[in-house]
């Protein structure tokens, strides 16, 4: 028999999931594998899935943290429906994640953690590694903990600290399995630990190499795998999460408009990383204000908008519930303001670390009175960049607050992102009003936008407020006809945004049997599903909406070109409700509300049911 490592099987796409206790470093392990795969030229998508608790009790089902990565020599759109490889660091991780593992998939389990106590905590009466219950999978029991301790014995860390290097052993082993180079992770370890804790640097390096060498020599696996480079468009790439891209998009919009960026925010999962990111960008002139609560965060942003800043507030659904009144104020004041909702599972506190799309109607209607607001949504982590810029364009062009919807999946998920060139982006024209003659705070231009006259400008002193005002002068007015006029003006102003929305792109069939119409973070799954059907020759098209209020002007016509319109959403059919109300088209709603993204296969199945007339 030839030496194990000699045999290499080339595969197209692999999904791998690392799972362990929330303290086991699974997010780090996944991130390292992601970066190394990106360097190897794969296209990829990731999905971190972690508990709300920072450190749930060790070994418990609630404490399981996972990171899934889908990497391929083809273009990928999702983190993969079902992992081909599962690395389970303990019984709880196995129990939670096994149902997702593909039949015949590879399971690497850390045997040391399968103690009686841990088995009991995970609800196993027998050790599944020994009772034959895993016969449907290729099971590789590896004593990761003990081998890690042996490998780093000479570094001199105490047992407790030494055990923490075991994720690098697991990473090294998986690197071997997929013929990956260790260099990137070695450099990362050096940069991260060498200066401050050289012994931790040594321990992690030894563990990483020991894991790799174990794969090489142990003849555990009969062969290893190779995923070749993907043919992705040429250019310079980086990996990016949705929250980072959103922060960068706001920075870019500030530079493109010449406005000073001001963020008022209050910590909330999964939006806090935007606050963290922008807090580190002070050298670009950003001011970040961590407010005492969600209301103060948006109120301070409204103040900054009045003062002439590019005002931003970032939060998640529960925070939006609190911000509603101040958002209404911004609408009445007709000031530009970006309100970001990184949606999570609701209602109430709901599922803080899980994804959902259930705040769409809240974004459109969640305020007292007739209070329309433009709403845009990002469709991939990298797309958060462009969506942020688009939100700012709308806000300053029409002098209106804009809601930007992201979600937990986009926020924490990452994808390779072609680095944009700032010089290639259209500037965002903004002029503060300075002309004293004829100035009235509620004069309007052709877009119904009022002048932005900021404090410090001589001769333009004026008052604004939440009370109804007379158009033009802005004076308080209780006149019934004026009120109705203003209600219509504010609506018309938001409707006018549609004049600037580019023609809608339809992917796949331009007319035919089924249009898959989605919005937000489900793009990847929907696109993967539709691509598959299109490849099979089905007359299926896809539209993914960035603009949810107002809708693109051509949307109704596009929907009518298809026999059926399928609207998959991670809620109970909120977009479907809007489409029916607006277009009187009986769209088919397809929903899932589990705190998890769609799978490609779920979309394919739903479309097939329509094609075959079984639904």
């Amino acid at each position, binding site marked *: 028999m030839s030496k194990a490592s000699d045999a290499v099987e080339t595969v197209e796409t692999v999904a791998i999931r690392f799972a362990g206790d929330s303290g086991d470093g699974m997010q780090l392990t996944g991130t390292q594998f992601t970066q190394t795969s990106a360097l190897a030229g794969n296209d990829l998508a990731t999905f971190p899935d972690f508990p709300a608790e920072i450190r749930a009790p060790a070994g418990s089902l609630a404490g399981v943290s996972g990171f899934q990565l889908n990497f391929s020599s083809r273009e990928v759109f999702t983190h993969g429906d079902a992992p081909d490889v599962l690395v389970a660091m303990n019984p709880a991780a196995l129990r939670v994640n096994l149902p997702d593992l593909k039949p015949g998939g590879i399971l690497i389990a850390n045997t040391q953690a399968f103690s009686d106590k841990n088995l009991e905590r995970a609800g196993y009466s027998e050790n599944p590694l020994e009772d034959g219950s895993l016969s449907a999978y290729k099971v590789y029991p590896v004593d990761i903990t003990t081998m890690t301790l042996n490998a780093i014995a000479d570094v001199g860390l105490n047992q407790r600290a030494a055990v923490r290097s075991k994720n690098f052993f697991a990473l090294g082993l998986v690197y071997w399995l997929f013929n990956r180079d260790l260099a990137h992770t070695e450099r990362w370890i050096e940069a991260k630990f060498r200066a401050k804790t050289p012994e931790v640097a040594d321990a992690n390096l030894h563990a990483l190499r020991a894991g790799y060498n174990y794969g090489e020599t142990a003849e555990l696996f009969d062969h290893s795998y190779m995923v070749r480079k993907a043919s992705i468009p040429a250019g310079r*790439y980086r990996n990016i999460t949705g929250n980072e891209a959103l922060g960068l998009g706001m920075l870019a919009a500030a530079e493109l408009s010449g406005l000073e960026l001001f963020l008022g925010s209050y910590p909330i999962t999964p939006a806090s990383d935007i606050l963290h990111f922008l807090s580190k960008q002070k050298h670009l002139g950003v001011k970040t*204000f961590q407010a005492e609560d969600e209301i103060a965060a948006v*109120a*301070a942003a409204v*103040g900054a908008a*009045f*003062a002439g800043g590019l005002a931003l507030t970032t939060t998640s659904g529960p925070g939006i519930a609190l911000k509603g009144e101040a958002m209404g104020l911004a609408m009445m004041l007709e000031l530009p303001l970006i309100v970001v909702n990184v949606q999570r599972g609701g209602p109430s506190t709901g599922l803080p670390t899980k994804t959902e799309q259930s705040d769409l109607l809240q974004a459109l209607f969640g305020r007292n009175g007739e209070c329309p607001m433009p709403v845009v949504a990002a469709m991939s982590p990298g797309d958060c960049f462009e969506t942020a810029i688009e939100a700012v364009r709308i806000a300053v062009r029409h002098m209106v607050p804009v809601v930007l919807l992201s979600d937990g999946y986009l926020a924490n998920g990452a994808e390779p992102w072609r680095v944009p060139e700032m010089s290639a982006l259209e500037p965002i024209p903004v002029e503060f009003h300075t002309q004293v003659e004829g100035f009235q705070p509620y004069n309007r231009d052709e877009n119904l936008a009022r002048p932005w006259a900021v404090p410090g*400008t001589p001769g333009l*002193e004026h*008052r604004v407020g939440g009370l109804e005002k007379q158009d033009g002068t802005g004076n308080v007015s209780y006149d019934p006809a004026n009120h109705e006029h203003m209600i219509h003006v504010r609506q018309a102003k938001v409707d006018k945004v549609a004049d600037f929305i580019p023609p809608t792109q339809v992917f796949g069939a331009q007319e035919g049997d089924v249009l898959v119409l989605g919005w937000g973070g489900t793009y990847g799954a929907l696109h993967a599903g539709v691509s598959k059907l299109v490849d099979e020759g089905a007359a299926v098209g896809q539209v993914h909406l960035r603009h949810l209020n107002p809708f693109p002007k051509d949307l109704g016509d596009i929907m009518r070109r298809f026999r059926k319109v399928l609207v998959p959403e991670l809620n109970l059919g909120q977009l479907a409700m809007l489409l029916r109300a607006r277009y009187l088209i009986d769209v088919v709603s397809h929903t899932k509300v589990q705190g998890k993204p769609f799978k490609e296969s779920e979309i394919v199945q739903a479309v097939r049911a329509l094609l075959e007339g079984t639904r």
Partner: protein
Amino acid sequence: MSKYPNLPSTDASALTRKDFATDQDVRWCPGCGDYSILAQVQRTLPELGIPREDYVFISGIGCSSRFPYYMDTYGMHSIHGRAPAVASGVKALRPELNVWVITGDGDALSIGGNHLMHALRRNIGLKIILFNNRIYGLTKGQYSPTSEQGKTTKSTPMGSIDYPFNPVGVALGAEATFVARAVDVDARHLQSMIQRMAAHEGTALLEVYQNCNIFNDGAYAYLSDRRTKVEHELKLEHGKPLRFGPKNEKGIMLDRSMRPIVVEVEDVGEDALLVHDETNPTLSYLLSQLLHPDFPTPVGVFRCVERPSYERMMSAQVDEAKRRKPGAKVQQAIEAAHIWTVE
């Protein structure tokens, strides 16, 4: 890269009271204490040497919060309780602006208690005038967080069972760096307090005892009535002994348990009296607890200490960050990650 209009400032020395009045009809009830406060603000601002366009008045909701409509400056009538937060955004972004907050006892201490407390804690440069009439006026007469216990109102037909807030005590507890009190009808004293707060760096809170002649008339009659005022008013002056009374014959000293007591100066001698010190937090708090009718009511500056303001430190951090990375551009932030090239 500042985009703000860079126009020459107007001449602040030529400003008069009239320059700060708008053409809007003032819609407070005739006889309301708010009129005096508006007048004293309009009289004082021209003396501060600040161009009119640099003033911003932000209010919340309530009778007093109509104030910005009557000031010909930049202004915003915002939402209930949130004025300090809105104003914080203005001041943090544009420290060069002169930002005032107009609020009432319900607005500042009930629905907006959180924002008031945190503005004071941060020491952000807001000048907050708190109109305390101890009642909800705009909603027509419910008890407020400063209403005395037992008060019978529309919402407390059997008397309020709430213990009231003491705004000065709350402000001191929130680490405010400037806390003062004045009475609406004492025009000259009120003006001097407005001047003092304007000169302060950081958050300045002025509580104004304000009469609501419709729903809580005479709440402070003992201080506003000339005949009783001298008996009940203790004017605080830094470095001066705490004396009051028609002939300045009474004083405040501490007994052996450190409790304040009212004494005849003649009996104890002036050296035995407490001497006001605006920088002594213990004394400031003790003074805030001198409550009518057992004690005279202190008016004036309870506390005034120097501490760098939030907006100054925020700007300093931005400047320092820029100094460390001169000429930084967003393109660099976009590329501040591991970059690889796909051919």
